[in-house]
């Protein structure tokens, strides 16, 4: 029986976030297949309910990747994204769930190293903490 691989969802903005992921792929960088990317127009679109629902649906870890705050395509989008993530992190702590499972990242579209580092960090968290509600840790 195959052991359960980590399940990670990444909400990526259509601008710098996605561009950073694409650039790292085109630079030949390999990343763990555990990450499922969901593209959003801007990380400011991300709602706390999306993040919590991802955990409900089986995610072990969730991240949000947006533009650098001083260079957001939509001005204050990634600042908003970070606020949403912080609020849900607080909620996770209050219900007794490790809040490292949820993280916000910012990257520039020209940075080919950012995305693999993000994946690696979240995979580490997912493997260390395992699925919510038990199941196999790795």
């Amino acid at each position: 029986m195959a052991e359960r691989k980590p399940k990670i969802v990444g909400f990526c903005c259509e601008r710098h976030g996605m561009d950073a992921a694409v650039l790292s792929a085109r630079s030949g960088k390999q990343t763990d297949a555990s990450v499922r990317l969901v593209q959003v127009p801007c990380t400011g679109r991300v709602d706390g309910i999306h993040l919590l629902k991802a955990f409900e649906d089986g995610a072990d870890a969730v991240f949000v990747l947006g533009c650098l705050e001083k260079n957001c395509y939509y001005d204050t989008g990634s600042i908003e994204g970070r606020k949403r993530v912080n609020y849900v992190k607080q909620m996770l702590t209050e219900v007794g769930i490790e809040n490292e499972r949820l993280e916000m990242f910012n990257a520039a579209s020209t940075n080919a190293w950012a995305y693999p580092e993000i994946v690696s960090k979240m995979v580490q968290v997912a493997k260390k903490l395992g699925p919510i509600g038990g199941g196999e840790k790795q």
Partner: protein
Amino acid sequence: MKAKIQVVLCKCCTEVPALLDIEKLRKLASESNNVLSVRTADAMCDGKELAAVVDEAKAKEIDRAVVLACHKKDISPGLLKAYKRARVNEFLVDVVNIREEVVLTHVNEPERAQAKAEAKLKAALARSVLLSPLEKQTEEMKTKNVVIVGAGVSGQAAAHEAAKAGAHTVLLEKTGKSLKVPGVILTHAQLLGASGYGGNFQLRIKAGEKIEELGAAAVVIATGGGWTTLKAPLAKAVKDALPLYKFYEQMQTGVAPRGPVVIVDTPDPSGKTMKVQDYAWDDSLETAIDLKKKSPDIQVYVVFQEMRASGLSELAYKQAADMGVKFVRYDKSGMPKVDPKNPTVLSVRDFAQGEILNLKFGTLVFASIPPNQDNKVIADALRIPMSVDGGIRRGSIQRWPVSTPKPGIFVCGSALFPKSRAVAKEEGAAAGAMAGEFVRRGVIDYGGVVAQVTQEKCSACLTCIRTCPYEAPFIGTASKAEIKIQACQGCGMCVGICPSKAIELHNHTDDQIMEESRVLLGGDF
């Protein structure tokens, strides 16, 4: 209306089949609900296969497409044009990134990659059936006006370029100086306020004593640097010290400056109130050389922390030295000082010799430019963000170097951050060209992926209005929020923050986002 989906599997030449089983994907697609057509292609980006894909789309009366290929931005333009011929709404064509998200990055895990590609296909299909066709609209630009705030080096360059593109340029110049630039020139003029959106702004300006309303299609901010607001220690000590640009201007009028001339890099050597600005070198060298040419007998000192002439300006450094310009380098341990009681001598420790030099000067010139105090006024009037250094912020350093985040408002020159005259001129030309092109369109394209309020759910909490950087939401006649679609950029910030979930972003609704996430998590890989 039942969705009628066409799935296209692009092989990205040989890349995709090298890792994935295309046949399995094809089978999965054709067995899925709502899928009426499945095609494989060698290279969608090539364009040659689009015709056949679109012909089948037309024949099967497809209304939406899911294209498994590479990065959406790279193939969308051609794809959407082609699908238009098959009358497929452009907002119902989804591109799924198999190449960068699966094939290129999971080379060593073919089984997981396959399962992931299949999950991505399923998620895209689940999302596709939830989408709605969206229509874009156009609104005529009421004027061809490009209003340029500031008629300095960059403003004038902007005016020339914008006029070339057929725009009517209106320059608002704060001083009374005379100018020769295309368009209407308003002297003793300033921008007081603005409303509207890119393509149709209503500006409030003050020209002399009169306050007027002026329509504009685009605005270019070229307010330049804060020539008159040097505050730091050296500037305070020497009341008649000049910014470099002012000094240069005076030289052009033929008046010989009072020598010796000492050009210091910054009025604040400690860097507490102002950072040293890199560009200052090029202009200083040019000025020093010009000065020596005009008045060979005047002693010229250039006092700097870092001597970094860029590119060919290196040659100017040598030329200046050959002409007798003296270069004095200092560091933080021996910063230039002037005794306010005797503001005719600059003492500084020459880094090379280690000795304190007391340079008697007739004219003290500062090479750096503080940000313009007017920037805040303009930023408030147009409601655009400022940068941390007191300049106007760009939309994006890479993509929009001379634009602000608000469509239709451009910025150039030292209003962005201090720079040399030559660069400011180029930026002005760029901003003018952008503004001209914008205005030449004649219409504003809006709609599509925009926000919409369901008024019955709105609590009129004003959160969306306070959050949006583009002033798209407003309280309408029903005392509920409404979105001014022409201003909406489709970012969805208001949607994510609305406490009553009264706003949705077309084709990026909560259901669509969460369904995609759910199906992806259901994949076993």
